[in-house]
């Protein structure tokens, strides 16, 4: 009996962690290249609505996921053109992207409110995915395994490959990278596109896997939590994985407490938990830091123009 509960807790935890992990991983790469894109929440919402719309009209959840990545990239490109080519302020543009995503998703989503789709199912055959114990490992959908593979991939890319080294160089010292001939702007375009794709995918996880139904603003600020996670992880993919699952645990706790019918704590106060946890974690990171600027890439948020 207890194992059944434990397994179900693991399932909820993984599901709650995956979208933030994806969005945060994308943002980590973006920030490593020296760009601060505050539009994660907006890109997630655009991915969520595009994914849902395509899945609803074609009946294919897989196509929905692809469309979500596409929508994430498209919105990220708006940010990239404004901040990289037109050197607009990154903070303001990122905020605009979030406001835009909220508006567009609820405009397009208005026609889908209450509609349902077939949820993203587990990858492995029923023998494994519905096994009472093994389903904790094999019972997840493709996006979960993809997210874990991506953590490994990004980690190796940043630490072990030449391209990853160049990306980090661009983020640490754009002027020098430019001087030795690396295309700073092009590399940042690439990083922002990657961040957009993952944010879109993370957003679609809400509308295609967690709740197979469209609801307005269904990401509920998870994009902002993803941004905080990147700080928590000190820009390291491994720690990001840990952080995302810690947040997943906080959210699971909230859901479990609600399900268990805890009455001495109002549901609204429980719903505050992930946001308060984010503030607490950011605070603890700063108290525990050794260097002055945490471990942020040196050029984070600074505009670059080759002149």
């Amino acid at each position, binding site marked *: 009996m207890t194992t059944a509960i434990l397994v179900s807790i693991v399932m909820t935890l993984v599901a709650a962690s995956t979208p933030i992990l994806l969005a945060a991983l994308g943002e980590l790469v973006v920030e490593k290249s020296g760009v601060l894109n505050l539009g994660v929440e907006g890109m997630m919402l655009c991915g969520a609505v595009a994914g849902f719309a395509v899945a609803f009209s074609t009946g294919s959840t897989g196509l929905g996921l692809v469309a979500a990545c596409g929508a994430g990239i498209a919105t990220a490109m708006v940010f990239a053109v*404004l901040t990289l080519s*037109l050197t*607009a302020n990154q903070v303001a543009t990122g905020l605009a992207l979030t406001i*835009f995503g909220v508006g567009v998703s609820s405009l397009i989503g208005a026609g889908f409110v209450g509609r349902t789709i077939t949820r993203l199912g587990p990858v492995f055959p029923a023998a494994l995915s519905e096994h009472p114990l093994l389903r904790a490992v094999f019972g997840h959908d493709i996006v979960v395994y993809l997210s874990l593979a991506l953590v490994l991939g990004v980690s190796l890319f940043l630490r072990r490959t030449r391209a990853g080294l160049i990306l980090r160089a661009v983020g640490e010292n754009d002027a020098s990278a430019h001087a030795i001939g690396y295309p700073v702007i092009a590399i940042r375009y690439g990083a922002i596109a990657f961040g957009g794709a993952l944010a879109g995918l993370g957003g679609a996880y809400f509308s295609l896997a967690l709740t197979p139904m469209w609801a307005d603003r269904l990401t509920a600020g998870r994009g902002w939590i993803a941004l*905080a996670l990147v700080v928590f992880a000190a820009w390291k993919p491994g720690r990001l994985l840990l952080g995302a699952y810690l947040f997943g645990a906080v959210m699971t706790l909230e859901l479990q407490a609600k399900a268990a019918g805890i009455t001495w704590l*109002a549901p*609204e106060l429980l719903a505050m938990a992930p*946001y308060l946890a*984010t503030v607490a974690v950011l605070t603890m990171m*700063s108290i525990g830091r050794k260097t002055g600027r945490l471990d942020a890439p040196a050029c984070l948020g600074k505009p670059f123009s080759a002149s």
Partner: protein
Amino acid sequence: MLEWRRRREPSPAMLYASPLIAVVLTMLIGMIVFTAMGYDGFHAVRDIFLTPFLEPQRWADLGVKAAPLVIIALGLAIGFRANVWNIGAEGQYIMGAIAGTGVALATYDMTGWWILPAMALAGILGGMAWAAIPAFLRVKLQVSEILTSLMLTYVAVQGLYYLVRGPWKDPDGFNFPQTRMFTTDQTLPVMMEGSLVHLGIPVAVIIALVAWLLMEKTTAGYAVKVVGLAPAAARHGGFSADRVTWATLLASGGLAGLAGLFEAAGPFGQLTPQFPTGYGFTAIIVAFLGRLNPLGIVFGGIVLAATYVGGEIAQTTVRLPQAATGMFQALLLFVLLATDVLVRYRIGWKVRAA
């Protein structure tokens, strides 16, 4: 070939022209997008951007919508000037309303002229208190105020839900999740008979003038700008960045709190779960459209107010969904940020190198 050339000095003409260009471009893009989506794009844009100004009976509504936007944006703009990014004004707006409502509920069986000022004071303090958390964390621990102020917005929204569904629920309200209605002494006086035009509108204009004087004519305003533009110079000049962070966050929090109280004691007349309307986020667009200049913000507030009022008109005339308003607002900010490039660059013909 056309090319962008960096101007030696930012163009003052473009500084003021680009918001206007942005509004016109937004109208054009909006027209195309909504026509493509199968709506009557031309009439949608006309109803959103022009009808509110052309029909005098809409002016009161414009003022009512513009007042909170202007009050919040004035505070935000001062912070943005100093590179202090308070994006949690929505949370401070809600906390202001909650604090003011607390006073209202404590005094519901009392009368007196002092009740409304006490509520306003509580509103300001509530917003300030909520902004003090990101201020403290940024000054003492270098925690990004962007993330903390935004996270606290979600906390404030849940706090509001908790209060109106729980301890503050109207005992005579048929179990609806809302507080008691405010009494006459707890409601903003109406300035024009038979309209919603309340005291908040002239107050917004006065605050704009004060903010303009403060930013343009005092050392404090100068300190804010120097800290934002040249932190190193500010240190040499003896301006404390920490004090500017505290001051700008408290000012923007206090103003957002006041706006929240005005909204609660004005158009709403009570607290309900529908209270968070996103003014705190829209005010960010107002601040940028107004070029972070207090007088420009009055203009920006009126334009954004028109998108709300006009959005409602377009809902009935061309059946535009309510969400279209939000998209127009975001589009405006994008276009504005894009046209900003004209301030710093000019377009010229590329001269071929021999």
